[in-house]
C-alpha cells in the first residue's frame, strides 16, 4: 500500500468520520427525535415494560448500527483509506 503523508491520513480519517456523522445525524432527525413520547409513556405506566422495550431498542439499534458501520468499512472500502492508513502508521504487526 502506498504511504501517505500524516496530514493526508488524518484528513481522510476526518472525512470518514464526517460521513458517519451525516448518516447518524439523519438517523437522529428521522427516528430518535420521535421516540421520546413513546418511551415516556411506558416509563410512566410500567417500568417492567419500559425496561424490556428499552433493552430491545438498544439491541436492535446496536445490530443495525453494526450492519451500517460494517457495510461502510467493507463495501465502500473505507477501511482501506483513512482509518486503516492511520493504524498502519502505528502498527507493530
Amino acid at each position: 500500500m502506498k504511504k501517505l503523508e500524516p496530514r493526508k491520513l488524518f484528513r481522510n480519517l476526518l472525512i470518514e468520520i464526517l460521513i458517519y456523522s451525516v448518516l447518524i445525524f439523519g438517523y437522529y432527525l428521522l427516528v430518535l427525535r420521535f421516540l421520546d413520547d413513546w418511551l415516556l409513556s411506558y416509563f410512566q405506566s410500567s417500568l417492567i415494560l419500559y425496561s424490556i422495550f428499552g433493552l430491545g431498542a438498544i439491541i436492535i439499534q446496536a445490530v443495525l448500527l453494526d450492519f451500517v458501520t460494517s457495510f461502510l468499512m467493507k463495501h465502500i472500502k473505507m477501511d482501506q483509506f483513512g482509518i486503516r492508513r492511520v493504524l498502519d502508521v502505528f502498527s507493530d504487526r
Partner: protein
Amino acid sequence: MYFPIADVTVNPLLLMCVGFLVGILGGFFGVGGGFLAGPMMFWTGVPMNFVVGTDLAHMTGKSIVAARRHRALGHVDLKLGSFMIIGTIAGVEIGARFIETLKDTGALEETIGVTYIVILLIISVFTAWESIRAIKMVRTDQIDAEEAVGFKGLAKRVQAINIPPMVSFPHSGIECISIWMVLGVGLITGVLAGSLGVGGGFIRMPLLIYVLGIPTHVAVGTDLFEIVFSSGFGTITHAIKGNVDILMALVMQTGAAIGAQIGATATRFFAGPRIRLAFSFLPLVGAILVIFRLINGGMMH
C-alpha cells in the same frame, strides 16, 4: 435536546462524542468504559441517579457492536465466556450483599474508594511492568510478539491444578484447565464488580491474561462478550428502578457504535504487549477519578 425521562436538557452531539470516545476505548481494550463515561455524563448535566443506569444501557449496545466485530476477527471464545458468566453472576450477588453489610458499618464510601484505588494501581503498575518486559523479550529474544508475555508463571501453575472436571478451550489455546479456576476468576471479577459498582472489564481482562493464560486479543473479545450480558442484566435492574433514560443511551450509542468498530478494528494492527502497555494507563485514569471523587466527597453509588 430535552430528555423527558431524566428531565434534563443535554446537547446530543456531546453525548455522541462521549459515546464515540468510550466506544474506541471499549473496542480496543475490551472494557465497558463506565469509569470514564460516568464522570463525563455527570459533567454534561445528567442527574447522578441516571448516570450509572444509562451508562450500562449504552454499554450493552456498544459491547454488542464491538463483540460482533471481535468475533468476526476470531477474538471471542464463546465457551470460555459462557463459563465465566456463571461465575460472574454469582460473584456480583456476593459483592452486592457485601455492600449491604458494609453500609451498616457506616464506612462504605472510604472502604470501597480506598480498595478500588489500591486494586487499580496494582493492575496499572503490574500490567505496565509486564508489557514492557514482554516488548523487551520480543526485541532481545526474537520471539513472536503474539506469544510474548512477561509473566507466565501464575497461568502455568493455574493450568497445572488438577481438580476435576477439567475442560479445554481450544480457541484460546488451552488444552486442559480445571473448570473451578475459570469459575473462580469469574467469581472474583463478579465480587469486585458487585462491590465496587463497576462493570469489571479492566479487572477481568488482566485476570484472563495473567491467571488463565488467555491470549490478549481473545481476552479483549471474550471480555466484551461477557460485558454484553452483565451490562444487559444491569440495564434491566436499573430500568425497573427508574434509573435509565433509554433515549439518552440510544443517542450515546450512535457515537459508540462507530467508536467501537474503530477500536475493535485497531486491535488487528497491534500485538498483545503493545495493547497491554496502552491498557495499563486506563486503571490509572480510573484511580485518579476515584481520588477526585473521594476528595470532593462524591458518591460512589
